[in-house]
Structure formats: C-alpha cells, structure tokens
C-alpha cells in the first residue's frame, strides 16, 4: 500500500467516524432517560428545575436539568387532573341544556353518522381495499337508502374484482333485499359505486331495527368476501311540525318546538344552533320533557351567556336535529321522530341578555373531587 493510499484510507476512516458521530437522529423510538425533576408535590419546585412551556412559548434553560430526577406517575396524573378540572370548571358555566359548541365538535353537529373504515384484502400481488359508506346510520322506513362504495387498488388490481353484489340484510332474520347499483366509475385505481334502495316501495314487511348494507365481492371467481356496514331502519313516532315565536325568559332565549306525537312519553330534542350569516357554531341544545299523545310544545333554551360569549345576535339556524323518545324502563326501546333539515330563527338583541354563569351544585362537587386529586 502506498503512502497516498494510506492517507486516503485514513481520511476515509475519519470521515466515516465523523458521519457516525454526527449522523442525524433516527426516527426509531427513543427511550428517554430518567429525567429532570424533583417533585415534593410542589409545582413551584417543578417549574424551577424544568422548562416551562405554554402553547406558544418555550422558555429554555441554558444547561440541562441537573441532577436528574423523575416525575412520578402519581404526580403527573395529579397535574393532569388539575388541568382537566380547569377545563371542566370553564365548561360548567354553560347550562347542560345549552352547551358551548365549536366547529370541531362534528359528532354533535352531524349526528347519525356512519363511521366505516376501509378494509384491505391481499389478492395475488395486489391490495384491494373496500369502503362502504351509507349516507347516514339511521333511516326512516319511508325514505331511500343511498350508499357509496369505494374500491381502491392498482388499475390492474381492480381487474381482480370479478363480481360484486350489494344488498340490505336484516341482522336478526337474515332476510335480504338487493340494492340497485348505478354504473361504476373507474379512475386511477379507484372504483366508485353508488347503490340505493327505496324503503317505502321495496321493503314491504319489516319489524326489526338493525340492518346492514352488505357487499359480497368475488376476487377472480374465488369464494366471496363479505363486508358490511350496520344501519338502522326506524318507524317515526313523532314529528316536529314547526317552531313558535321566540321569547326571553330567565336570561334564556326560549324556542318553542311544536311536536305531534303518536304516543305519550319522555321526548328529547337536540340540535345545533348556528349563526345564519357566518355559519358559525354557537350552542348545542338539549331539552327533554314528558309529552302527551297528540299536539305538544317542547321548549328549547339558549343560555344568554352562550349568546353573549359567542357574540352572535342572529338570525340563527337550527340544524342536525334529533327527536328521540326515551326509554323509561327496560323493554321500552328508544324510538325516533322526524324533523326538517333545519329551521331559521329570528335574531335577538344581545343587550337583552346578561352574562350569568349556570349554577350546578353537582358540578361543584365534581370539581371538588377532581381538585382533591390534583393537590
């Protein structure tokens, strides 16, 4: 070996060593060492020795925390319970019949959703995933069920799907009804299919509640793969026939809901209140009362504090409406009523309301309990 070759080898070794030392961190899970903090059940001590972070600001110390000590699970949990208590306290100022609503709470804003996920199948060298997406979860026995089906694979992979049936199946009796399938649309390895069934004309005898939209797919003629999405089909036992004139009572905006019922019982109305102009979420309303058979009025209430905190004077829109006949005892199943998609409510003068927090003795007890853990 020549001198030049030796120098080159030495340089190469040095470079490799440097690369090894300074190579960026791997993404593999890092096992953090026991770190930083003396506990002694005092937040002040923790803040002295650790870095204190707010959502937007990080105050860093120049040197790492030393000596290294650990935060116990108990202490961390206590700390978290304090935070939860703070959030709970903030929420508790809003009435349970008029919750503060944000755009993120899509489970409340869009109730009655299907929550299906795609399921993947390995077929030869391709992966085929199937997603069944009914337009909602609970259907009235007089309406049409629409279902979107998405099959994804490679363009070659889609050719493996040689047969597809879509049908409605009752969970108990296993009786089934075929859905009408519209022509499929293939686009870059994705096949979209729309299927539907009109219950009022096609489902002549039905007494169950639990059903499923079922897909039977054959890949290259093999035995079929079965995938389903649960739905419910219900008979309506009440109807919202309109709203009355709003009024202000005890610092709440009262919205009279006119309801026709087939049976007496406890009925619960819930809906999201939006500002009509800005389409901003304001409040989630829940009201429940015992109604007679026939014509009734159930009052929904919007807490004045919510309106003032949100700063919207309307006009408003009620949407995402659910009318539920509650179970009063075992054996009495929940039943549902119908409503329009939305109702418009006239605006208010925010000056007519005061910012008075809701008082709930039980919420106080819960807070006391959570704070006791956080101490």
């Amino acid at each position: 070996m020549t001198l030049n070759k030796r120098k080159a080898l030495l340089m190469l070794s040095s470079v490799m060593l440097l690369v090894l030392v300074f190579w960026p961190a791997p993404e593999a899970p890092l096992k953090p060492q026991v770190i930083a903090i003396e506990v002694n059940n005092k937040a002040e001590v923790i803040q002295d020795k650790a870095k204190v972070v707010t959502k937007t600001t990080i105050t860093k110390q120049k040197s790492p925390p030393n000596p290294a000590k650990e935060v116990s699970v108990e202490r961390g949990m206590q700390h978290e319970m304090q935070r939860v208590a703070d959030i709970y306290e903030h929420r508790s100022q809003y009435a349970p019949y008029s919750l503060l609503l944000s755009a993120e709470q899509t489970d409340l804003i869009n109730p009655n959703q299907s929550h299906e996920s795609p399921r993947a199948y390995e077929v030869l060298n391709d992966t085929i995933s199937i997603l069944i997406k009914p337009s909602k979860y609970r259907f009235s026995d007089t309406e049409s069920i629409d279902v979107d089906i998405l099959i994804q694979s490679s363009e070659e992979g889609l050719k493996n799907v040689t047969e597809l049936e879509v049908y409605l199946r009752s969970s108990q009796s296993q009786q089934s009804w075929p859905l009408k399938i519209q022509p499929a649309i293939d686009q870059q390895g994705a096949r979209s299919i729309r299927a539907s069934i009109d219950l009022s004309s096609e489902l002549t005898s039905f007494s169950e509640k639990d059903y499923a939209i079922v897909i039977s797919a054959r890949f290259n003629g093999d035995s079929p793969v079965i995938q389903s999405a649960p739905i419910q089909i219900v008979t309506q036992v009440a109807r919202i026939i309109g709203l009355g004139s709003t009024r202000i009572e005890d610092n709440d905006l009262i919205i009279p809901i006119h309801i026709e019922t087939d049976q007496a019982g406890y009925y619960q109305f819930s809906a999201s209140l939006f500002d009509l102009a800005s389409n901003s979420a304001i409040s989630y309303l829940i009201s429940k009362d015992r109604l007679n058979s026939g014509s009734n009025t159930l009052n929904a209430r919007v807490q004045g504090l919510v309106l003032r905190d949100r700063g919207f004077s309307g006009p408003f829109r009620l949407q995402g409406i659910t009318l539920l006949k509650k179970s009063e005892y075992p054996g009495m199943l929940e039943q549902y009523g119908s409503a329009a998609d939305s109702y418009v409510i006239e605006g208010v003068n925010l000056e007519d309301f005061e910012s008075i927090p809701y008082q709930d003795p039980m919420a106080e007890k819960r807070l006391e309990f959570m704070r006791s853990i956080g101490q």
Partner: protein
Amino acid sequence: MKKFNLASLVAASGVMLAATTASAQMAGHNVVLVHGLQSAVLFEGQQTDEQLSRGGEAYWDDYWLDKGDYRLDWDTNDRVEGKTAERAYDLVMQLSDANACANGCIFVTHSTGDLITRYLFDNMDTWLEAAGKPALNVLASIDLAGAGGGSELADLAVDLHQNDSWYYAPMKAAVSYFAGGTSTLPENLGTMYDLQVTTARNIATTPNSIPRLRFVGGGDDAYKVTKAFLSGTDDSVVALHSSCGAINARGIDSCSTRVEMNGLVDAANGPDGLVYNNYPILQGQGISHGGIVSFFGTSNAIDDELAYVRNSFASNGLSVNFDTYVYDYKPWWYGYWSSADQYQYVRGSGDKMISEIIYDTFNH
C-alpha cells in the same frame, strides 16, 4: 361499608349488585365496577345470575375487585338495549334505593364497560324520574381502555360470522383472539353487534355533565395479530380513536395532537376532537388491553413511561392556554447541530401495575 350477601341479593332481585369488602370505596366515595366484553361466554350461551356474578368477580380479581362497592355484571350474549339495559336499570334503582351515591359515587369501567356505562348515564335520569326516584350523584367515570367508540374487531367478527369460508387467515387469527381463542365463531354474537364501530358510536350520544377520565394504551396482548385490523394505534382490542374518546373513527396514534404516545412533545397524529366531557389522562405505549386492569398480557405496562395527555381547551372546543412541564433529551449521537427532543412523561413506580397507580392517586 356493609357487606351484602350476594347470593341472597341475586335471589331477591336478580341484580348483579354487590358490596365486596369493608375496605372498598375510593377517597370516601362508593365505586361501581362495570366490566368489559367476555367473549368466552358466547360459546356457553345465556348466563345465569350466579354465573354472571362469578364471571364478574373473576374479571376484576387481579386488582379492582375489593375496591368496588357495587358491580354491574352483564352478559355478553345480550344486546346493550336489551337485557343489559334491564341489568343497568336494576343497578340504577338499587343505587338510588340504597342512597349509595349520596356522597357521590365513581364508576370504574374497562373496555366495553365504557359503552355500557355511557348508555346507563344517558338513561338513568329518565329512568329515575319515571320511577319517581331522585337522581344519582355520579362524580366521574374512570375508563380503562374504553371501547365506547367500538372496535374494528367486532366489525370483522360480524362479517366473518356471515361467511363460513373465512376467506383470509389473518382475519381469522385476529377474530379468533377476540372471540376467546377459538377457531370458530359462536352462533350468537350478542354485544359484539353493539361494539361495531358505527353502531357503538350511535349509542347514547347525548352529552352529559359526568366527566369521563380515560386511561389508554398502545401495547400488545395478542402477538400483534389484531393490529392490522384496528385503525391507527391500538392496545390489541381497542384502537385509540375509541379509548381516547375521539369524535370520529379516524386512525390516530396519540390522544393528543401535541404529544406522542411515548411522551415526545411533537406534532402527533391525535384526534380531530374529543367527545364532550371525555378527558384522556394518561397514555402509555406499552400498556395492553388486558394489562391496564390486570397482570395479564405479554407486556407489563409499567415497565414503560406513561405520557400525560395535556388536555387543552383547544382540544375541547375552547381556547385558553396552560403551562405544562416538558423535559429536553438530547442523546450524544444527535450531533452538535441537532436540537434536543422534548418529552413530557412520567415514570412507572416500581412494580406497581397501572390500575394500582390510578387507584392510589385517586384514593390519596
């Protein structure tokens, strides 16, 4: 606390309600235990009250049994809105008659017990009002590996149940674990129908004032055979979207968008939002579905760090900032110019199991 004679109580009322020991309660409050799915009983058929009582005892035996003052022992053969609702109704009436929640009571649930309890909370005020009884003062529910948002394994079980050919081996293996280790499915899937993701997420959806304090894991009990069928990170039976209390079933890898499962403070694949009054408290990447309530499981969770979830007003639809504690960690191999990672986590406490830590903290 008075010790009830369980046998006579069952004989008298058919209610699975028991006060277990004189030293029960948590911080002076009565504790109600609600267990999870017991798939093995699906092969045995409808359970008697005595069988349910024995099953309930065995379920909680590793730790919580003597911490519970009352139990709801329900049958996996039944649907939530069916016979299980009757058992829940009877429990609510018994708690009311015994004035058991006068000083506030605490529910402790595991897995599907989360869903059953949500149904109970959703209906108990109407049940009591219709019966002319006062409301119960429930302080909180501690939900361990809660399945209130359903489990994709239940979806799979229902579909395989309808298909004798069992087309694919991995699915069979996953459902086999879920169904109690057998290679066939029982005739009746009972509560598994309710545990389908879409179905579970449409049961008892009305928000209420009872805080649900959630403890979750990302560990493994089943040699990873189930993980491919659960969305995002899971604990072998329940995906995080369900156990964290997320508003939808999108696969997530943390209960927070700002903290990963191992405590690393970073942009995490967290929930789009949390169900009203659901608060994840602790998450541990090594905590398995069984390990959160017992010593069962291939991993003992407490060997690993647990991250606290850093609940925020933002994730609950409000907007207020809070301080929190984080720690820098920069291993030597990060090099000169790499910045340190930030972690927020808490350490395990010796040989304590996770349930033990939770109880000790709440009971102090």
